């Protein structure tokens, strides 16, 4: 297992559940045992959850695994029937099968290294650092109106900070939710007195040792004590260059997680799986994908293709912002219409269905968990 977060842990669990009884090595570049990342931008950042609450393993769980934590895999080689992983500390791990679960790393703005007060949020260490700074209060500027940015803004607002969100696109969340719904969801910011500047490209940051402002391309200056850069993530696959594993927006995989190299599967944020429902490859950075797909990938690894891959459920994610539960399932990109089926966006309690040629392809809800589940099941039952 290369990667010790949710996808790697889930793969280790799937291996044991599916009867694999041999040696199991989990390599993780962070020093921590597997922890849950979604609370890092919410309850952990707000201080209502502690580090112990983030643990993904239960106290009595024993996967009989060897954990190599704080070690980064730097190369994968094929040596006859064996796959060889080289680690940054010079160690070598030989394996019959490899699960790639290296995840993704937060993108940063160029030229911000070494400037205090500038944060990205991906890891527990990132979250600790940001939490400590937010506790001091002041003016927070969030660059990027995506889900991480929006959740950080929401948490910081609740902590009493003065918050501004800067988004380069005309509408935040237009990629995952489409223009109309992206606009509706991101309207939560201004409804709570958080400034939202859209269509605002960032030219750079100013400050000597510590950031003091964000400079926009249109000449405006936004004063800042703390800056969070939430401009997406890129898959951690550079180390696989030259390994023979085909890369294309992450590790290119079949519908069961198999890569171009026998005995190697990929799961989680680093994996670009073929999605039979969408008819194309999709690299999905959702928690639920990282938990569910290892089952299929491990079955494929143990049988190498003898197992028939099932059709996965439509991708699902949730977000909590300003006390509102936002849930989404499916793919918005293929939709030609979106209609509100229940409630009203203005009440922040509604459900909207995305359709393509009359067929539902995605569903979005705010504070409608029961109805959302009905639609999510219906979406899963719709033939691809």
């Amino acid at each position, binding site marked *: 297992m290369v990667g010790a977060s*949710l996808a790697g842990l889930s793969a280790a669990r799937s291996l044991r559940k599916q009867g694999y009884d041999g040696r199991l090595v989990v390599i993780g570049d962070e020093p921590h045992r597997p922890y*849950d990342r*979604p609370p890092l931008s919410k309850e952990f950042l707000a201080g209502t959850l502690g580090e112990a609450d983030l*643990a*993904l393993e*239960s106290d009595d769980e024993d996967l009989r695994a060897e954990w190599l934590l704080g070690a980064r895999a730097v190369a994968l080689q094929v040596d006859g029937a064996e796959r060889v992983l080289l680690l940054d500390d010079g160690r070598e791990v030989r394996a019959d099968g490899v699960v790639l679960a290296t995840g993704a790393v937060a993108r940063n703005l160029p030229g911000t290294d070494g400037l205090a007060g500038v944060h990205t949020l991906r890891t527990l260490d990132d979250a600790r650092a940001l939490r400590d700074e937010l506790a001091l209060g002041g003016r927070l500027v969030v660059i990027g109106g995506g889900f991480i940015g929006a959740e950080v803004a929401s948490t910081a607002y609740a902590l009493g900070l003065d918050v501004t969100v800067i988004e380069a696109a005309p509408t935040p969340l237009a990629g995952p939710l489409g223009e109309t719904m992206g606009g509706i969801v991101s309207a939560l910011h201004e409804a709570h007195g958080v400034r939202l500047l859209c269509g605002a490209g960032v030219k750079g940051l100013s400050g000597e040792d510590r950031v003091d402002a964000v400079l926009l391309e249109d000449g405006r200056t936004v004063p800042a004590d703390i800056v969070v850069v939430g401009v997406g993530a890129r898959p951690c696959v550079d180390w696989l260059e030259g390994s023979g594993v085909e890369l294309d927006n992450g590790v290119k995989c079949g519908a069961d997680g198999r890569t171009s190299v026998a005995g190697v599967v990929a799961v989680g944020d680093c994996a670009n799986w073929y999605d039979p429902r969408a008819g194309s490859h999709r690299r999905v950075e959702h*928690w*639920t994908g990282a*938990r569910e797909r290892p089952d299929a990938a491990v079955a494929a690894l143990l049988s190498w293709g003898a197992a028939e891959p099932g059709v996965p459920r439509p991708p*699902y994610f*949730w977000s909590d912002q300003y006390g509102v*539960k936002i*849930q989404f399932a499916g793919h918005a990109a293929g939709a030609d219409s979106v209609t509100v089926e229940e409630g009203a966006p203005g009440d922040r309690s509604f459900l909207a269905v995305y359709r393509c040629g009359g067929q539902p392809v995605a569903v979005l809800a705010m504070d409608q*968990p*029961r109805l*959302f*589940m009905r639609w*999510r*099941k219906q979406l899963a039952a719709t033939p691809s």
Partner: protein
Amino acid sequence: MIPACLLVDLPRGEAYRLDIDPPVSVFHTDDGEVFAIDDTCTHQDASLADGWLEGCEVECPLHASKFDLRTGAVDAPPAKRPVRTHEVLVQDGMIYVVPSTDAPNLPPCVASRLAGGPA
């Protein structure tokens, strides 16, 4: 022993939420078995009656934790604590729940609310 609902009124694959404190949900599986567990997910405040029922497992509608209806055990994270189970009886077509005397495993926000503290 608390009457829940008539068996004929609870189709297979559906759940019925009993509004007692804390709430309990009765599940009728696709195989025709009936189970009762605490309705509230042990991870965060969500109603498991609104969850995804598959076999003898229910998946939380919010964060996808999975619980085994037979034992209450956690089958998938982020929940870590089992959900409390209750005995079920079916007599003359009526489903009855025999509430467990064990302590429930409620999520922190709900537990503090029940204890009269701040939510």
